[in-house]
């Protein structure tokens, strides 16, 4: 395994920040709810990458344990999100966010 020193950590953090920004861009620009969920996943994976990188840098198991928990949280969150998208599709026959515009705003 590659040892994570300061330089490698920096690279990993930049990669994580890029991933996060990409995901955020997707969330802000996508009109399709599936696309939104994919953006959300990218952001969550940036968090996981950060945690793993920091965990390896500091040593110990804290970072890995934290990552396992965040992965589980993301899975639960996306599962709820997909259920809501199915609900939207059943009522509006569309997964577009614009279909959900009954409430003002």
């Amino acid at each position: 395994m590659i040892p994570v020193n300061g330089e490698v950590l920096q690279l990993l953090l930049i990669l994580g920040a890029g991933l996060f920004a990409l995901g955020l861009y997707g969330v802000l620009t996508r009109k399709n709810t599936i696309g939104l969920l994919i953006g959300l996943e990218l952001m969550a994976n940036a968090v996981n990458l950060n945690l793993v990188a920091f965990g390896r840098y500091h040593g110990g198991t804290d970072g890995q344990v934290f990552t396992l928990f965040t992965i589980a949280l993301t899975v639960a969150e996306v599962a709820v999100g997909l259920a809501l998208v199915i609900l939207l599709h059943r009522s509006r026959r569309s997964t577009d966010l614009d279909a959900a515009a009954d409430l003002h705003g």
Partner: protein
Amino acid sequence: MSAVANGFAALDGIEILAVDGLLAVSALGLLLVDVAMPAGNKRVIGYGALLLLGLAFAATFTLDLTGTALSGAYVGDGFAIWCKRIFIGAGFFGVLGGLDSTARIGPRRQGEYYQLLLMSVLGMTLLAGARDLILLMVSFELMSLPLYAMAAWGGIGNYPEQKGPIPGMTMPSKRRWHRPAEAGLKLYLVGAVSTVVALYGISLVFGLGGSTRFAVLATTLTGGPLLTLAVAMIVAGFAFKIGAAPFHMWVPDTYEGASTPFVAFLSVAPKAAGFAALVQLLLGPLAGMAATWTTLVVVLIVVSLLVGNLMAVPQQNIKRMLGFSGVAQMGFGLMALLAAGSVTAHDVASRGVRPEGLATLLFFLAAYMVANMGAFFTVEAVAAAGYTPGKPADERDDDDTLPTFAGLHSRSPALALAGLLFVLSLGGIPFAVGFWAKVWVLLSLWAAGFGWLVVMAAALSAAGLFYYLQVARSMYMKAPVGADGTTLPAVKVGGGLLLAIVLLALLTMGVGLFPGPVMEAARIAAGL
């Protein structure tokens, strides 16, 4: 052998999780009961949830929950116990006031609603004592995920036009049927993104501090640009959750679309939980970054007060109005947090300032919970009368608008009086409980040296009285006549909703007249 011994050592002090354990067993137990019960009206599960929440609330008074557990990841102190009472109390009233509405919306699926609500309350009570980043985030998600499902609960599947009406169920209009799904989706998208944003900030905190324990982080975090970014992301993420402007855009839509008793719960409990999380992070491991986060919080306060008070005025839908008023109320909560974070040990020693910020926050959250839940239940009581003149048939039950309150005084004097009490408390008029909460927050903020903010908040609150009194005017000064000239019917409230409104009104008035003991209790809970 020693690994086993260590495993048992981690269980030391586990008894302080008694209330959380009770809630966990309750939630899972109700799920089993729900599955085992024959299909049909499952109203009895609501009574079960009510009983268990009542037991949990009593347990916070009778059991000694102070101490440390899970090797320091979980702490029971006055703050945590006070927060637990708010969460469990909000859950109790949420169930009590929603019994009829839940049975009306989905008589056969009631069980899952109460189970989700208990899970959410469990997440909040765990959050109140979390002193570890992992536990904080897991309990925060345990709180949030059920809320998304509960917001969408109601409009499941296709509108049953071919199959005919479901027995035992009052059919809502088609438009209303589809609304909860939209409300849930909006709450979910904003909530999920804000969680990930906060989580990113927390991953940076973990990386810079090298630990997940708050006690360790408090000594290892030193500062720097990366930590500033982390603090900004954490504050922004949780500002979404508590619905403080400019992160409030989900608030009015979700409030309007979701069922009113659920909104009563949503508008107080998760917000108090968001404050609990902010207090633990910002006054705990991030206390050294106070210069950064107080600046951010000042911005949030100013924008929340402006947006909340000004946007509430033109709202015709009363749930949207209460949503924007809630944004302004969050400004007050943040002011208490600001006061708690800006009074340093130096101020206390040199100027004799009392560090009361945290106590005012606890008192404010309790006062806000009582009055805001009461206001939403009043809306539910009026809306449940189910009559909207001058509207097409398929919007008949779209009845949360201001005109439905016209002449409520002559239609149902007691309900109008309770409603008046709740809006006066939210508006901060003596001698309702909200008055003392606002005055105390302003006094502690003045002592912390934010005179200009106090003046601005007082002025905007006075302006905010306009929309609160608009409701009072509609109830007391207008004739009980609808837009189409028909006389509005009397409003009959019964069952759980009546009991919830009466209890909340008594609390609003009782604590408003005798605020001393509760304020003293808040001081003790805050460790003063």
